[in-house]
């Protein structure tokens, strides 16, 4: 049932060692969660599961520090069991990383997770980690990435240097899963690099704060995290084969924080993956503090999403507008609501998303998510998931 790879076996072995040694300074935390999804329409492909789906997840985390906190070890593993989709049932090392901190530099060694960027509707600049797409189609869940990361902290900015040995394939839903292409993505993968998933990728990023402005400039040279999906015909029928090109990607991210206005911009320039292209996400978030004489804050978000690739079949958001609202109740239960619509300016295709959560008692969190798609044309990437409107309930116990 589970797809277990050698690195995952190492993770499990490591977890067992940690458990058995019962280190006194060991600090465990994490969560276990149950998830129930209801799909409001029948699937497009008969092989896909019907209307509801049960899943469980666990993410235990171990942290230990020594040498006056100058050295630390963080180990975060992830387990998912899914009722129908054998590809979604999986195990991953999210992080297994040693950090050493000196006065003006830091060194990280191991499997890590890194986030770059500022915008809300999509994350163009963020490129170090592969998306764990079977977890959630929003792409916010990431697979652990092997890395050596040296960070230099200087008055003129922070420079992060990355050497990334080894590549993680994007996860895709299996035959019986929802949220997938039709035909499904094959297990077989192809690479531009002869080293395949053993290629060593490189990245560098500089960030600096100038008063109200936070600026980042980055470059990545390596295997694209985003594959091209090439139709192919193995003996058992038509499939899509992921093809990972070697790319150069330069990224800029800027945020200006001017009182209640947050102005955000991310731009990328990518070459090596078919035609050279540019993409952009830019907009603002405006916060009404203490809305209607309450304790609640209401943030209104608007972002424009653009991609100049000619072949629009590749790009979900090529000329789209995102409008959203974030309501934070600031209450004891930390109740929150995030609502957004991404709509294509030309075709009127719409992607609706709603996320709400609140704490129940001291250690439970109840969350609801909804995703709905309307008016998608048959030649667009979102077409094959346009029957996958979903309402998801999750109850998590944190420890």
């Amino acid at each position, binding site marked *: 049932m589970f797809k277990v790879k050698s690195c995952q076996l190492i993770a499990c072995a490591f977890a067992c060692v940690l458990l058995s040694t019962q280190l006194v300074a060991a600090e465990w935390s994490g969560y276990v969660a149950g998830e129930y999804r209801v799909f409001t329409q029948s699937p497009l492909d008969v092989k896909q599961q019907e209307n509801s789906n049960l899943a469980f997840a666990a993410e235990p985390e171990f942290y230990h520090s020594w040498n006056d906190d100058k050295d*630390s070890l963080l180990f975060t593993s992830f387990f998912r069991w899914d009722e129908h989709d054998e590809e979604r049932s999986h195990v991953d090392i999210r992080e297994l990383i040693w950090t050493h901190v000196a006065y003006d530099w*830091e060194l990280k060694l191991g499997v890590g997770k890194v986030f770059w960027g500022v915008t809300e509707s999509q994350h163009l600049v963020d490129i170090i980690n592969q998306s764990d797409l079977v977890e959630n189609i929003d792409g916010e869940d990431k697979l652990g990435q092997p890395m050596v990361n040296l960070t230099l902290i200087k008055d003129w900015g922070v420079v992060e240097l990355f050497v990334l040995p080894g590549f993680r394939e994007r996860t895709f839903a299996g035959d019986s899963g929802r949220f997938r292409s039709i035909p499904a993505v094959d297990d077989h993968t192809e690479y531009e690099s002869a080293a395949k998933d053993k290629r060593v990728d490189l990245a560098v990023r500089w960030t600096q*704060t100038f008063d109200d402005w936070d600026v980042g400039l980055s470059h990545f040279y390596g295997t694209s995290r985003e594959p091209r999906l090439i139709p192919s015909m193995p003996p058992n029928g038509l499939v899509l084969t992921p093809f990972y090109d070697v790319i150069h990607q330069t990224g800029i991210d800027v945020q200006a924080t001017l009182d209640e206005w947050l102005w955000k911009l991310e731009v990328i320039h990518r070459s090596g993956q078919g035609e050279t292209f540019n993409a952009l996400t830019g907009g603002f978030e405006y916060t009404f*503090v*203490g809305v209607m004489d309450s304790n609640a804050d209401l943030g209104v978000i608007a972002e424009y999403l653009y991609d100049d690739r000619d072949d629009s079949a590749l790009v979900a958001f090529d000329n789209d507008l995102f409008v959203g609202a974030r309501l934070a109740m600031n209450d*004891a*239960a930390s109740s929150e609501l995030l609502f957004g619509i991404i709509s294509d300016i030309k075709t009127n295709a719409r992607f609706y998303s709603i996320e709400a959560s609140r704490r129940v008692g001291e*250690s439970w*969190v109840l969350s609801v998510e909804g995703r709905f798609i309307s008016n998608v044309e048959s030649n667009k990437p979102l077409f094959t998931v346009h029957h996958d409107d979903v309402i998801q309930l999750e109850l998590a116990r944190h420890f």
Partner: protein
Amino acid sequence: MKKLGLLFLVLCSAFAYAQTPEEKGLEIAVKADKRDNGFGDVASKMTMTLKNANGDESVREMRSKTLEMTGDGDKGLTIFDKPADIKGTAFLSFTHILDADDQWLYLPALKRVKRISSKNKSGPFMGSEFAFEDLSSREVEKYSYLYIKDEPVNGEDAFVIEVRPKYKYSGYTRSVVWISKEKYQPLKIVYYDRKNSLLKTMSVSDYQQYLGQYWRPNVMVMTNHQTKKETRLDFSDYQFKTGLTKRDFDKSSLKRAR
């Protein structure tokens, strides 16, 4: 010469007598600030107990570090330990005297550092009855002052001064502060909302002196008179001059705060 000296003394006492309530209020604030100067850095643990009108309780635990800055507001880092779902979340702030503060929030699940708007001064801290501005560094220049009277709090002699925020986005028109004559620290603060209605009362108690100079409370209780909710903040493990530097208060340290 002697006559001149005498005249000088008489003039001085006349000036002292003629000190306006504004001048006296400011003098108390300046003295309180001076008494607390030079603490360098301080770390402490906090337990926050929220109680609603029905008496239901919920608990937050966090640790905070503060770096004293001269000529600017202090830098602060707060790391949340409980409730478990926000464990590892951390909050970095560079307070400024009159300019808007700089604030960053670290979200551990996404590994994301977010610069956030500091307009939320009046907003509740962690769903409690404390607002962000109640817990941020109190720079002298942030307020105007008015001395009202002397009045003891639980038998401890205190000055009573009225304090009005000069910075933008405060949730208060004014607050009335009882400052201990011995410690030059607040014993009680009564807050009035933007409509100048009675909003909250904070009682500060169980002061202890550190390094022979710096007084810090062990307990703060904030009572909201409008909602009948109450938040108790217990401090422990105060540590002064642990050698923290500005490097302990930047975005890189925010990302690995534990």
